[in-house]
């Protein structure tokens, strides 16, 4: 008998079937909850009917004043809204998907089944996504049917495809973000509080989309869709990567153990002393600092750079894209041919800069301070944007540099000489420092999506932070200081020598 049972078990182990079993159960359970079903009915039937009536009234009203464009823009806008409203309650389902089950003690039996972490995550995410998305599609249909009857209006296929894709992408963003929250918190209450991290950006996004809809610039919305798809991929990957059934049951309260966090951070911040194979502890006390210094520069920093190679590569790719962006903008917005007179540059051109209000004085302190502030800001933004804004912040100034390089080339100067004179003297140090610092910032943001093997998200992030602190203070800051000195005292001389009279 046992053999027969084993055969039944092994023979029916299809991963997809298990995911679908989970999805079916969850969807059925959702549809039995009147607190979810009633909003679904209201938002998919009554609300779209109301919107089609409102659209009809608005069209007739504005037609009386001879300004039909307002009505024409209102109809697609409302189409987007009737699609978005039903997916808003996907948050309610998704936020409690794991943590709600944990609170009701029904999660542990589920975790004891042969479902893998990925199957569990996928099943729960799909189950949280399907009812709101179907409701959104139904809402759109009801609205369009109403409009067809009231106004004989139907959307173009492109607009319909855009709205459906946009609605779907928004739904996936909200659900995948909420599922991540739900799997990382210990109570529904905590998950709901943290949901503001989803609600506020989504509200801003919808407001932005509304403005675009009123401008009828639908092509821009396809870029929004592309952006949302990238965020979807990031969030789903992050969810699968950091989802851990052990974490779900291992924690009972959201306790922030500051002492433990500090200990872990200090542990990562430390490094092994080393001095060319000698036992540093046996060196004379006054020479042991050599071991500390050599350990940092010969062992620890190269190791940090090695484990940050992927983040640095991403930054370098971003940097290459800045060349394209700079040249593209230069081609679109060319300077008048008589604007640039590089041959008139003298050393006074640099010293007289402060006389222009909007350009600060080119001093060592200002240059260093400016670069440090920009990189620290990039690091902070990286934490909240999975590293993407740090790369964007580096791309922007470099794109401006290459914009000028292209402009210079278009009026007959050598772009190579321009770059070599204006950028290279200090850029040789400043660019690698900026790339490395941005790479560290990218790691700080990306660790949330993909913590290093064997480390939790928190541990991975603390290690990335400790690495960033060490690299910034021991490598980036000295390089930036040197670069600032060169930029203030050497670069102007090189520029004048290369171009000036």
């Amino acid at each position: 008998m046992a053999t027969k049972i084993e055969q039944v078990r092994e023979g029916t182990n299809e991963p997809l079937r298990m995911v679908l079993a989970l999805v079916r159960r969850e969807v059925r359970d959702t549809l039995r909850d009147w607190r979810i079903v009633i909003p679904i009915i209201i938002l998919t039937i009554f609300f779209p009917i109301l919107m089609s009536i409102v659209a009809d009234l608005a069209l007739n009203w504005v037609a009386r004043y001879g300004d039909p464009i307002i009505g024409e823009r209102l109809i697609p806008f409302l189409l987007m809204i009737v699609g978005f409203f039903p997916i808003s309650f996907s948050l309610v389902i998704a936020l409690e998907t794991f943590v709600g089950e944990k609170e009701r003690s029904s999660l542990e039996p589920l975790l004891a089944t042969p479902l893998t972490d990925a199957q569990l995550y996928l099943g729960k995410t799909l189950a949280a996504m399907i009812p709101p998305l179907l409701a959104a599609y139904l809402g759109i249909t009801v609205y369009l049917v109403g409009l067809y009857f009231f106004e004989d209006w139907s959307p173009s296929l492109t607009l319909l495809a855009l709205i459906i894709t946009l609605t779907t992408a928004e739904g996936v963003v909200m659900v995948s973000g909420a599922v991540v929250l739900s799997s990382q918190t210990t109570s529904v209450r905590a998950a709901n509080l943290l949901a503001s991290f989803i609600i506020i950006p989504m509200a801003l996004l919808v407001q932005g989309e509304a403005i675009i809809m009123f401008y009828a610039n639908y092509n821009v919305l396809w870029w929004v869709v592309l952006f949302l798809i990238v965020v979807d991929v990031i969030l789903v990957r992050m969810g699968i990567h950091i989802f851990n059934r052990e974490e779900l049951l291992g924690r009972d309260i959201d306790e922030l153990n500051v002492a433990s966090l500090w200990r872990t951070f200090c542990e990562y911040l430390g490094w092994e002393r080393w001095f060319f194979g000698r036992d540093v502890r046996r060196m004379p006390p006054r020479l042991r600092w050599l071991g500390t210094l050599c350990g940092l520069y010969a062992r620890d920093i190269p190791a940090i750079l090695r484990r940050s190679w992927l983040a640095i590569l991403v930054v370098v790719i971003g940097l290459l894209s800045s060349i394209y962006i700079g040249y593209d903008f230069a081609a679109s917005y060319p300077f008048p041919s008589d604007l640039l007179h590089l041959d008139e540059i003298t050393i006074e051109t640099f010293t007289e800069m402060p006389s222009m209000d909007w350009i600060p004085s080119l001093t060592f302190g200002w240059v260093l301070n400016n670069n440090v502030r920009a990189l620290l800001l990039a690091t902070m933004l990286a934490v909240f944007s999975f590293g993407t804004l740090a790369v964007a912040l580096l791309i922007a100034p470099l794109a401006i540099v290459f914009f000028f390089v292209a402009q210079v080339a278009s009026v007959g100067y050598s772009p190579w000489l321009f770059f070599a004179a204006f950028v290279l003297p200090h850029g040789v140090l400043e660019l690698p420092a900026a790339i490395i610092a941005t790479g560290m910032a990218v790691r700080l943001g990306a660790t949330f999506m993909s913590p290093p093997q064997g480390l939790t998200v928190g541990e991975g992030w603390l290690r990335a932070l400790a690495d960033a602190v060490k690299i910034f203070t021991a490598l980036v800051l000295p390089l930036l200081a040197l670069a600032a000195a060169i930029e203030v005292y050497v670069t102007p001389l090189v520029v004048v020598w290369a171009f000036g009279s």
Partner: protein
Amino acid sequence: MIELDDLTKQFDDFTAVDQVTLSVAAGEILALLGPNGAGKTTTVRMLAAILRPTMGRVSVAGYDVVEHPQQVRRRVGLLTERPGLYLRMKGAEYLGFFSSLMGLDADEGDRRARDLLARFGMPEAWDRRMGTYSKGMRQKMALVRAMLHEPSVLLLDEPTSAMDPHSAKLVRDAVLGLRHHRRAIIICTHNLPEAEALADRIAIIRRGKIIALGTPAELKSSLLGPPLIELRLAHSIDAPHFDGLPHSDGLPHSDGPHQDRVVELISDMVKIEARGKDWLRYSTPNPHATNPLLLQTLASHDVRVVTLGVVPRSLEDVYLRVVEA
């Protein structure tokens, strides 16, 4: 069937399970006892491949829980501390869902589910929403869920809590039946009489460490000492007809406490632990040899014995002795 070797689980700085080593053979029932927070549930969760051990090794039904967690989960039936049912579902839907996750086809799952529900005396649960079940029914439904796929290893956390005596007996009978089917079973419970009735061996865990392990008899013997034997007489120990009994010095006794004479008769053979008006309790390292001799001596002195029996010692005595130590 279940092998734990140096099993350790840490949560940050807290060690929930500390170097636990034990094994449970097929057809054996082990009761895991311990105060709240001792590490029982964490141990069970590691055995069910829900938590990963920090150190050590666990093998369940021949599979390592870290390397083959899914194979382990396929072979383990877990009854969790709380039933954890989906209250909006009907019994049939719920069991169908879990039988599907466990890889059973629908017909086979239905058949087993109906059999188990009938065995636990609640066939009507099949068509009812679980939100309408009583506490005991919910517990039994959770047990049915755990047994549905006929697992070779059963991990039962408080299996009869919230059940009426009849239901509890049904569950105990079912567990004993599983032992005959060569399942390895671990029961975590605070119900000590139940543990004693069901378990072949008892493990007592405190602060994550196993502090006592053995059969109930072994634990009683090693922790409470040799068994206590109670002797009850048909008359009070100081009854007048004892007056004729000789003193230890051979002279008739005329005054003084009579009971000392009975005690004197047996005190060379056993150690008197306590005594009352018509009874006394003693211990002896070798009751098989001592008791017949003692009875013979008492009879020869016309002391009429009503009963001679071992004083029952509960597992609770063992547990409290160990845990309070």
